[in-house]
């Protein structure tokens, strides 16, 4: 009985999830399908603070998943990306004004986090995670996948 109830719950979740993707808008990036949070308890306190900032500022315009599951790893790429985000006007009170110091903190966090989670000993597991997101995106949104990633040689590039 319990097992059957559990199956119904999972099925309902699945239906709701597909309805929400189908009825609303298609996620912009494969990143958006991944987790919205990460465990930063082992990070230095300064990075934990910056993570809070990322969660507060970035989610005003898009899910934190977009940054967390991004293929970007290089500090230089992150700098270019964040500077672009800084140039969103705060006209409808949705896009936050990201001050230079906030932007710098978010940049430091994303550069640090990329090194920890996406390179070195974690490079393989990260690669696997990233590919699974791309695979799921291709299956669920083939047209958008083609538009977003189809032109890139390895089908993995995120346009900056």
């Amino acid at each position, binding site marked *: 009985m319990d097992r059957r109830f559990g199956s119904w719950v999972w099925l309902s979740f699945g239906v709701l999830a597909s309805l929400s993707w189908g009825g609303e808008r298609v996620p912009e990036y494969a990143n958006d399908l991944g987790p919205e949070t990460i465990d930063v308890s082992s990070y230095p306190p300064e990075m934990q603070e910056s993570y809070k900032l990322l969660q507060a500022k970035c989610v005003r315009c898009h899910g934190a998943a977009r940054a967390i599951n991004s293929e970007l790893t290089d500090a230089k790429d992150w700098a270019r990306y964040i*500077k672009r985000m800084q140039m969103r006007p705060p006209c409808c009170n949705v896009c936050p004004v990201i001050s230079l110091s906030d932007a710098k903190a978010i940049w430091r966090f994303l550069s640090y986090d990329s090194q920890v989670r996406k390179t070195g000993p974690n490079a393989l597991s990260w690669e696997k995670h990233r590919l699974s997101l791309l695979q799921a995106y291709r299956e669920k949104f083939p047209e958008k996948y083609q538009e977003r990633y189809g032109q890139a040689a390895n089908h993995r590039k995120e346009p900056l």
Partner: protein
Amino acid sequence: MKKYAFLFAIAITGFSAVSLTSAETVIPAALTYAPEVPPAVARQAPAVVRVDLRTEEKVGVLMKGFEEGTKYTFWTFNGHVPGPFIRVRVGDTLEVNLKNPKANSMDHNIDLHAVTGPGGGAAITLPKPGEEKTARFKLLNPGLYVYHCAAPPVTEHIANGMYGLILVEPAEGLPKVDREFYVMQSEFYTKKPFGEEGLQSFDAQAASAEKPTYIVFNGMVRSLMDEGTLKAKTGEKVRVFFGNGGPNLVSSWHIIGEIFDSVYREGSVTGPQHNIQTTLVPAGSASIAEFGLEVPGDYTLVDHSIFRIEKGAMGILHVDGPERPDIYKKIQ
């Protein structure tokens, strides 16, 4: 005898006239740098107003960054981009002294759009490095005008930051306002993309193709944000002197959430138009906008050719004051 007395009288008169001319009062211009504006001209009569300008080629910040920032070798008037705001009165004689220090690599000059005569003054103000030139110009037409360097190649001198605004007030002055700001839009063309840190170099091909890397207010990305945010209060009337140094693009200047009560289009101070949402400001021209502030909040200055905000064309006017639910309120 009578003949000698007559000649003596002429000589005395001539001497007096020369003395009067040499004793002529020359007033130093009060110069300010963006976003500050000098006070209105209080004089009721024309005067000779002297402006001292020094050309300077210097490395400055085009965009603050996370490490060293984006730097650029600006060519400037008095070390600033834009150059100083010059405020004079119609009928004044502008005496411009232009020094070009030896350390510079280029000849420089000044073409003031407010000046009547060849090159707007450029033809007689072209010091080589280590030289200086002085010239006088009678200002015949009131208005808000751009000035810029026109030394060859003029394209590069403007692209590197040599421009500013000169206001020639009408005899009766401009209507009184509570605050005035000086804002100037311009583009920069670099070989590396937007936000790249370190010293950037000028990209002549991008400039020729009119594809700027940066479009900024007052010479730097976010110069009117963070600590540079413009500030005012509700109940105040504000005037913005908005110039466009170009070198290429026409600005669709707009303030999100405001309607310009009066706009003196293209800097013509003779007759404003009213209730303007967005005003076109051509490269090498200017506009004066006046507006009352009723509702508190942040008002974003943009070039409404809107993708340009991503290249830097954005600033904020922060307005403090009590809420005005009679004008602006959320229902649900």
